């Protein structure tokens, strides 16, 4: 986005009348300091926001004389006018620069007559000289800072003034006057007379001479300037209005430039020539440049180059960089890398399409909610000076508005640009009928989200709803004054004074503003620290203080109605399987875990999975009772490896028990799953389990498992017996749950029926109890 080219001359009154004090208390503040500070601010901002501007400052009332007009007439005329500018050209304006600003800073109020007309002639001359090389694309303007007490004698200058006016009109150059003590200036109440009375030295003397006529003189000057402003589309403003605005909120000047000038094809039989402008787009900060800290012979410039290396090669290896000739272009297609020949690249990357905006249908406005709209928004209007097109576009906008429809169109803003899918929304205000264009997502751009319904879940109580209601009431950022149509007429003009807080139009980006502040400070003092953020900007990053204090009762109500409890971030937990929970339930210890059972879609909130799952805090494992500790699972895929891994990690007795428990469960799974189909893995696992049980002297769980298995199908028992897997005996491992050798052998040889086995198991359990009794 370009910036408009501007050429400005600022006239600063430095004459003795400007030495008038602003108020009686402070000697340092005079009309001149006020004007000078304003000029400096204006220059600083101009440099920042529109660096392409051509600038010069004309000081009138200086003791020296240095200006182009004076030189031309060999020492005569146009005295006491000094031109400050920086340019390689001998005449005309110069680039805005920090040096110019510094020079204005050094300028003092001098003891000389300031002649308004002389200064205006010099300014106009600068611009018109500039005109020869600046061309018409530069927008020219003259700013004048004065208190209106300068010398002004139109007598005998009528011809000159007429010529000046003609010249300014020809250049379309308005005159903007910032008048100190002019009509409407509220801060400078002292006015000319009393101010001058307080002035010292020469200023007082001079002022004394004109003192009686002060008010009349100022009025005369003001009248003249007002007349000039009227004739050149300029403006006369009292200083109070302008100066405050200058300090804060800097907005870059943007050139209004079309993005698209072509046909809008609403229907193959109905085409409208349109122009489109970007309406709203994020404004980025300027780009930082790089240079060497210590310049070399070639200067301090640096370049950023891209070198290429093979993946997996370290950065430090010298010959890692691939030579340019060995590099080709390509694309990824999933995992495949496809090399593309140079002549094919264009064929693939360039999508051929014309510059056009073609409607493909109309859709109900309710089908396109606001969250589908993507930036940037463009304003589509009829071609300039084309009344029939404007009428057609207005009729379409009106029709769309009345039908509550949007148009859908395909839009390529230039040839071969990626076509965007867009909607055209109507704007059918009385004084503005146009279409707004917003891109909408294609199928590939959309993400489908799925969450449990907030409204279907546990309903908030009446008290909670009331609390929220009160909150909304007390934190309203708009006051209901007018109706809906309030916004109607002020749209483009940006009329202020609405009751809405933080209206986007009046709210400036704090980051940009802070950056500009920092840049301005640094430009004039390289050692200065980054300034703190201006309190005015900072204030709207916080909730409005009035609003916040008004909302306090509502907040208290919220606090009373809701309980918010922070959950500390927990370590990544292991998942437990549902089947374990079921198993525990069978063992009647499940109730302890019920609280931990989370059914997604009801409690978890993020709706990721619909599977009931158990989560647990495993960071406090040591302190928890046994039934609350982490439960392991062993995969049926690599049972033995997994089992051994877990066993290695298990440190306490309890943990080993847990692993054994998981293993027993896993073995049962393996046997169940294969339907007794002789799974090799199941038996390998059983054997491993047996040996590890002996190692750890914990035979109880293994024996329990084996008894359980004995109690099952006869083919399984036969296989166990065949493989010689027996209960663990006292001889092998003297731990709780071990059996006598006789009993083990009995199981190995006997072929029991399930019923008998269960009876046997019952018996065994009793035996175990006795056994435990004897051991303990």
């Amino acid at each position: 986005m370009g910036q408009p080219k501007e050429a400005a001359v600022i006239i600063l009154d430095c004459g003795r009348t400007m030495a008038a004090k602003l108020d009686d208390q402070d000697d340092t503040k005079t009309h001149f300091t006020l004007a000078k500070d304003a000029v400096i601010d204006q220059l600083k901002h101009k440099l920042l926001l529109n660096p392409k501007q051509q600038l010069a400052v004309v000081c009138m009332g200086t003791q020296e004389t240095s200006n182009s007009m004076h030189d031309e007439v060999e020492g005569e005329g146009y005295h006491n006018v000094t031109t400050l500018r920086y340019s390689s050209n001998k005449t005309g304006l110069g680039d805005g620069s920090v040096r110019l600003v510094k020079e204005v800073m050094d300028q003092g109020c001098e003891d000389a007559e300031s002649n308004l007309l002389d200064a205006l002639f010099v300014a106009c001359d600068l611009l018109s000289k500039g005109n020869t090389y600046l061309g018409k694309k530069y927008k020219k303007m003259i700013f004048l800072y004065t208190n209106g007490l300068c010398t002004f004698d139109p007598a005998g200058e009528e011809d000159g003034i007429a010529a000046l006016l003609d010249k300014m009109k020809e250049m379309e150059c308005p005159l903007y006057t910032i008048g100190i003590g002019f009509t409407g200036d509220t801060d400078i109440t002292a006015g000319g007379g009393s101010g001058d009375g307080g002035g010292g030295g020469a200023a007082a003397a001079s002022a004394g001479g004109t003192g009686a006529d002060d008010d009349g003189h100022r009025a005369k000057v003001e009248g003249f300037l007002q007349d000039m402003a009227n004739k050149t589309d300029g403006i006369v403003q009292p200083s109070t209005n302008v100066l405050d605005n200058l300090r804060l909120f800097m907005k870059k000047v943007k050139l209004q430039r079309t993005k698209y000038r072509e046909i809008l094809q609403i229907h193959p039989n109905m085409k409208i020539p349109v122009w489109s402008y970007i309406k709203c787009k994020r404004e980025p900060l300027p780009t930082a440049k790089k240079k060497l800290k210590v310049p070399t012979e070639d200067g301090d410039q640096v370049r950023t180059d891209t070198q290429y290396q093979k993946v997996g090669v370290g950065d430090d290896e010298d010959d890692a960089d691939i030579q340019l000739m060995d590099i080709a272009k390509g694309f990824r297609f999933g995992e495949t890398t496809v090399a593309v020949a140079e002549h094919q690249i264009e064929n693939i990357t360039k999508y051929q399409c014309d510059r056009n905006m073609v409607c493909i249908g109309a859709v109900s406005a309710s089908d396109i909610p606001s969250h589908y709209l993507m930036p940037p928004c463009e304003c589509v209007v009829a071609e300039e000076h084309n009344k029939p097109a404007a009428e057609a576009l207005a009729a379409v906008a009106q029709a769309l508005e009345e039908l509550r429809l949007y148009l859908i169109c395909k839009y390529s803003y230039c040839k071969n640009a990626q076509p965007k899918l867009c909607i055209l929304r109507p704007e059918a205000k009385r004084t503005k009928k146009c279409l707004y264009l917003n891109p909408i997502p294609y199928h590939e751009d959309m993400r489908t989200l799925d969450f449990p319904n907030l409204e279907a879940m546990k309903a908030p109580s009446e008290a909670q709803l009331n609390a929220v209601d009160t909150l909304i009431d007390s934190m309203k950022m708009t006051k209901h004054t007018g109706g809906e149509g309030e916004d109607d007429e002020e749209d483009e003009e940006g009329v202020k004074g609405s009751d809405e807080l933080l209206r986007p139009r009046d709210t400036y980006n704090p980051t940009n503003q802070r950056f500009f502040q920092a840049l301005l400070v640094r430009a004039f003092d390289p050692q200065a620290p980054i300034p703190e953020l201006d309190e005015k900007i900072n204030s709207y990053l916080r909730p409005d203080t009035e609003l916040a204090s008004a909302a306090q009762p509502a907040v208290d109500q919220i606090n009373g109605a809701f309980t918010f409890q922070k959950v500390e971030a927990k370590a990544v937990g292991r998942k437990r399987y549902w089947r374990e929970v079921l198993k525990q339930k069978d063992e009647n210890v499940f109730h302890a875990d019920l609280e931990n059972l989370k059914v997604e879609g009801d409690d978890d909130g993020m709706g990721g999975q619909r599977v009931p799952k158990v989560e647990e805090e495993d960071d406090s494992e040591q302190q928890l009772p046994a039934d609350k500790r982490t439960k392991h699972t062993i995969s049926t895929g690599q049972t033995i490896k997994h089992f051994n891994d877990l066993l290695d990690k298990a440190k306490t007795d309890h943990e080993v028990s847990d692993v054994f428990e998981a293993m027993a469960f896993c073995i049962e799974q393996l046997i169940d799953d294969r339907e007794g189909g002789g799974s090799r893995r199941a038996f390998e696992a059983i054997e491993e389990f047996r040996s590890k049980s002996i190692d750890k002297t914990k035979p109880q769980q293994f024996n329990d498992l084996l008894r359980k298995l004995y109690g099952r199908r006869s083919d399984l028992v036969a296989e166990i017996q065949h493989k010689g897997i027996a209960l663990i005996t006292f001889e092998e491992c003297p731990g709780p749950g071990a059996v006598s050798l006789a009993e083990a052998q009995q199981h190995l040889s006997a072929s029991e029926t399930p019923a008998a086995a269960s009876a046997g198991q019952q018996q065994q359990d009793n035996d175990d109890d006795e056994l435990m009794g004897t051991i303990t």
Partner: protein
Amino acid sequence: MSEFEGGGFEQGEESSGDFDYGESGAFEGGTDLAGGSDAKEWHRSREAVLFAVDCSEAMFDKKDTPVEVSEGPIKTLRNEKRTVFEDVLKTVCEFMKTRIIRGSRDKVGVMLYNIGAKCVLELGDGFNGIHVLKADGQAGELQVPDAERVAAIEKVGDWTLDKIHSEFKECDPKAKLGEVFWLASTLFSRTDIKKTHNCRLLVFTTEDDPVGRHKAAFDFAVQRAQDLQAEADLELFPMQPDGREPFNFDTFWSDVLQVGEEDHPELTAALKLGDLKQRIWSREFKQRTLNSLTFEIAEGVEVAVCMFTEVLPQRPPTAIKICTDDNTELKPKRVITDLSGASVLPESVETYFEYGGEQVKISKQEIAQIKKFDEPGMKLLGFKPKSSIKLDHIVENSKFIYPNENRVKGSRVFFSALLRKMIERDVVAIVRLIPRANATPYFAALVPQRESKKLVKHIEPSGFHLIGLPWAEDIRHLQLGTHHVAVMDSQDATEADQADPHAIIKDHDEWREQVKNAKKMIRGMKIDDFHPQQIPNPMLQRHYQAIESLALGDELPSSMSQEVLPPPLTMMQGSLPEDAIKFRQSVYGDELVPKPAAGKKRPAGGGGGGGAKKPKIDPDSLTKDKMKEMIADDSIQTLTNDNLKAFLRENNLPVSGTKAVLVQRVKDLLK
């Protein structure tokens, strides 16, 4: 590269690919998340999707299927005879291609069951009746899709029942469904896929009662499905060819899927052919959190929210660099050099901004300091009526906000109350948002969204849409007077309007007649049930079509250079040409396209006046001598960039850079 280039304003979008996100990269796009480790639990960065496709007889019923056909520039739907099986496999291919287009590194696998093959893994006896598709020379069953794999699966789509019967005779084709689930679990467990991926099994079948009355088989299947669902998602896509019995969920699947019908109303309706694609779309992606933030209601009152991407434009990828020796991808490395070409350490470089002809030094750290305002989070500033959100003020793609109960208990019930009341009062909440550490703040509106299930293909969940608001700098004030935007009915015109030279004041009857004609034309263009989901991006589609062809060594499609209109929509069905012509005549008279009034007309392309066109210079006339002359009188500046580039190219010099750089290069050459 600049500190500000794009930075700070890109609000941490999900990346479209180039990131190598390992397990730690739970948040794509390198979003720097402060203290959100809990989010990793539910949202792993990648997905592993396994398709299980039934190969029983019913899957090979041939039926009419609507198929997209390109006729010249417009795509239309035409019915074609296809089998359910073919349709499913085609959809799987589409699914893989979409993944590729989105640049995701997700793994995809396909298994066929009820087929006479045996799937044997390293351990165990193998699974009867199941065949897992593998591309030649590839190891794992679940792979990041590539061209070969897509092509292989596309070919499988053409298989007939006869071919399957004749080629796969290893064992009884009847597979146990429990084994299908078991095999899926096993595949997900291998190489720890389940630890780093969100695993999903999508089952496509016509069979509503796959186990019959066999109790053991039923229990086995249910048990296996439960096991699977403890670590992965199981989703059913019931297929119902015409003329078959309706798919009955109660016989088997309702026990396996473990979800009530109220959660999945769409499950009760079996799929017709052709619906499949849309159903897959709607389930295409698992949502991933973009950010996990605190939401400060007032001082000391905080709830927690998660932020999700709703809309993210996908652009065609830029070309990567490949080493010609072995066709491997090369990684770029940015180096800073001085003008002599010697590389420079980053420490010896400083940053500055130009201001008024001076270089103003502001270091990187200071820029970071300028951009830092507060800790990441959302802060409630107040409420405004919904109408205060102007649609022409859209500056960000919208995000979705949902309460995060895992960080602050009570968040959800608060949001539930807030949602109800905000909808009731028709207001939006204005918040200040700092999406992540070191991001710049912006204001946004939270727009409440009630759950709506208007269409099967797209469900709007309940929650809040977050719509970024512009700053004053972002809004442009347009001067549109000369475009005659003030067109009005004479009955509405005020005196001021009469005086406005740009206003067009229309006679009431004439104006209403024109509007009536426009309405008639537009009504004819109306599309019902529109959703952007219906329209794929033609440029992306074409790009990947071309890459796919190249990857498989095919010819580039002939339609490459031709523009394709995006819609599969039937263009303006009901709109008669007469309506449009009538409207045109009412505003333009006999003209087809009106010309602007004579007088001021800015030349196209130039802003604020353009000036005379530079005279064309024949590039061949630019000899070295001529250049030297031009350098001497500085008329080299009048040459166009094309001229300069042509000259540089002829002298084997680089042609990159701005005009100043080009001129300098020419000067250096002729020094």
